[in-house]
């Protein structure tokens, strides 16, 4: 946002400021305006059909006093942390592998990349079918271990959601890490090799520290992105069983579009924005200052 507002002033930073105008216009039209709209709606009562009535803090008290909010926050947090913890190590390992020069690497890279090309809804429908306790993979192949009530047991359902989300997004983060690893100058590795460092030692002492900013970028995308997981969970479990997988975004949808409570739904939207901003800022802090700093030699 800061970078978007600066070029709004005419010409001070040179004659290229106007180049940002289209982007700025889109940002205002599709991010700022809806955001303000949602904030205003959160102080109203509206069923989506009739008149919008101002109702002060009614929607806020209704949402904040509802135990459902804490539950949804907790589920969102759980999915966020678990999917981060699951995706990050695997993405780093895959990314490092893909950055190497092994045989068949290119072929494997294409295979790993496939999940990212599929739509979330298609992935959800496929997994739902595979995990069906009566007609799914386990029942079909007669493997007792796979015949679980995957999406019907609350704790299993959360696990499955985390797994499928990770399955979908690991390719993307692997790609980030692959790029990150490729940026690391070979000279550092060569020097380490001369000093007698093994592969594992080089991974921990060179690759990981050099990937610091990639990790922060990827983690920010994962964490903030996990706040908005909706389609996959909606199709796969619809927030169920009960409310075991009802994340904040799903809670917002259900209140807004199924229960016709646009006011409280807007409150949740505002909470989502605030949580997202807070997390993004927090991760920047942890990253230690400016992301544009470089750890590379000579930069």
């Amino acid at each position, binding site marked *: 946002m800061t970078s978007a507002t600066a070029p709004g002033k005419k010409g001070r930073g040179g004659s290229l400021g106007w180049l940002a105008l289209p982007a700025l216009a889109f940002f205002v039209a599709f991010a700022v305006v809806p955001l303000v709209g949602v904030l205003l709606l959160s102080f109203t009562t509206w069923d989506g059909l009739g008149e919008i009535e101002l109702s002060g803090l009614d929607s806020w008290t209704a949402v904040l006093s509802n135990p459902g909010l804490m539950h949804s926050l907790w589920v969102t947090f759980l999915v966020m942390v678990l999917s981060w913890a699951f995706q990050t190590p695997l993405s780093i390992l895959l990314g490092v592998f893909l950055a190497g020069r092994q045989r068949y690497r290119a072929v494997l890279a294409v295979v790993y990349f496939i999940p990212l090309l599929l739509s979330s809804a298609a992935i959800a429908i496929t997994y739902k079918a595979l995990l*069906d306790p*009566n007609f799914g993979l386990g029942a079909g192949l007669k493997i007792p271990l796979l015949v679980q009530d995957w999406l019907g047991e609350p704790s299993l359902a959360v696990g499955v959601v985390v797994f499928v989300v990770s399955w979908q997004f690991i390719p993307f983060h692997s790609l980030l890490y692959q790029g990150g690893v490729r940026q690391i100058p070979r000279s550092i590795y060569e020097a380490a090799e001369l000093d007698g460092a093994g592969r594992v030692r080089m991974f921990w002492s060179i690759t990981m520290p050099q990937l610091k900013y990639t990790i922060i970028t990827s983690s920010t995308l994962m964490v903030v992105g996990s706040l908005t997981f909706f389609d996959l969970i909606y199709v796969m479990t619809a927030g*169920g069983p*009960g409310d075991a997988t009802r994340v904040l975004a799903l809670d917002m949808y259900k209140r807004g579009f199924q229960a016709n409570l646009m006011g409280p739904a807007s409150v949740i939207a505002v909470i989502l924005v605030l949580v997202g901003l807070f997390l993004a800022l927090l991760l920047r802090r942890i990253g230690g200052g400016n992301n544009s700093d470089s750890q590379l030699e000579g930069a």
Partner: protein
Amino acid sequence: MGLPLGAALAACGTSGPTRPGAEASSSSGAGAAGATYWYLSVQPQEGVRTRTMERFNKANPTGTIKGTTFANDAFKTKIKTAIGAGQAPTLIWGWGGGGLRSYVQAGQVEDLTSWFDENAAVKDRLFDSSFGAATIDGKIYAIPCETMQPIVLYYDKRAFEKINAKPPESWGDIMALVPKFNAAGIAPFSLGGQSRWTNMMWLEFLFDRIGGPEVFQAVFDEKKDAWNNPIAIDALTKMQELIKADGFIKGFSSITADSNADQALLYTGKAAMMLHGGWCYGSMKADGGDFVSGGHLGYMNFPPVEGGKGDPTNTVGNPGQYMSISSKATPEAKEIAKKFFATELMSDTAVKEWVGTGAVPVVKGSDKEFAASEDADFLNFVYGIAVNAKAFAQSWDQALSPTAAEVLLDNIAKLFQLSITPQEFATNMNAVIGK
């Protein structure tokens, strides 16, 4: 900036899907005079709706209807959003009751009372009991159409032969059958629990059989603490007893009804019984191989509960589907819609086609058409239920306002997960009475 973009999109929208009636409507110049109609995309019903519309368009080339189809759950959200945004189709298809009431309160649908007075012949052909859910505060806002769909207890005769038992005649029989079926490796009941309204059908019958329609009527009439009625608590407790006894198929809470997976469990022999809407007959006939044609499917009304006050002829479900006219539509489109109501919507040909799907149209005397149908037994059974029912209650989630319905479905899902007790259910539900 948004304006030209929006205009461009609108242009795409009108020029794209008009192909079927394009040459017919070109005489009117703009081609925008037609009415629009959104409907559900599940076969075989979709086919009937499409053909009915096409017949109308053929007979009325100057004022045609343009249809768009949607999946059930997507439709429910889409139509509400579109109406709220003033983008509703001319013909608003729905289930009447609480959803219709919210449209009426927002002034989004036409009052059809006077139109029905002028066209008494149209009204007299349809079942009186179907008009209840179309009537809000004494005025009629929708025309009942398509079919009556009471909830029916389906069963697999082969499963009963296997354990050498008879279909249940009481709640006690049901509870006694559960361990027998489980011992034989067959789930007693199939259930698409993720859809939530499927669970609700059980409660609708238990409430009715134990206490009669008055128990839910008190909720509908917004009586304070209506869910605290001891009969309600008793029904909820019985429900959880059946769940705890493994009365339902393993993993029921992750099965959806939209995919018809619950019906598949019945016709593949994995489950012995299923409480479901009358519309399942047609889809099980289409998908279930020789399950229906081979005479393996049995059906009955929900059995009485010992000591219950409810009349065992009572039923619940959809007393019909409903079509309203958007108050925001152009006068020309409204005229086309009314003409559609008066002519093709439930014409004799349409009635025949609906009977052909294995369902009972909302038209009086439609049982005359049954004899020629290979589904005559089932059709007569449903017609009998619909005509003889002392009370034909509307599904709860359709009768209540969308806000209350969402809380209801949410709590029903938790009740079936055994994560709340009957008393907690009642307390949660009492909190939203009148909302």
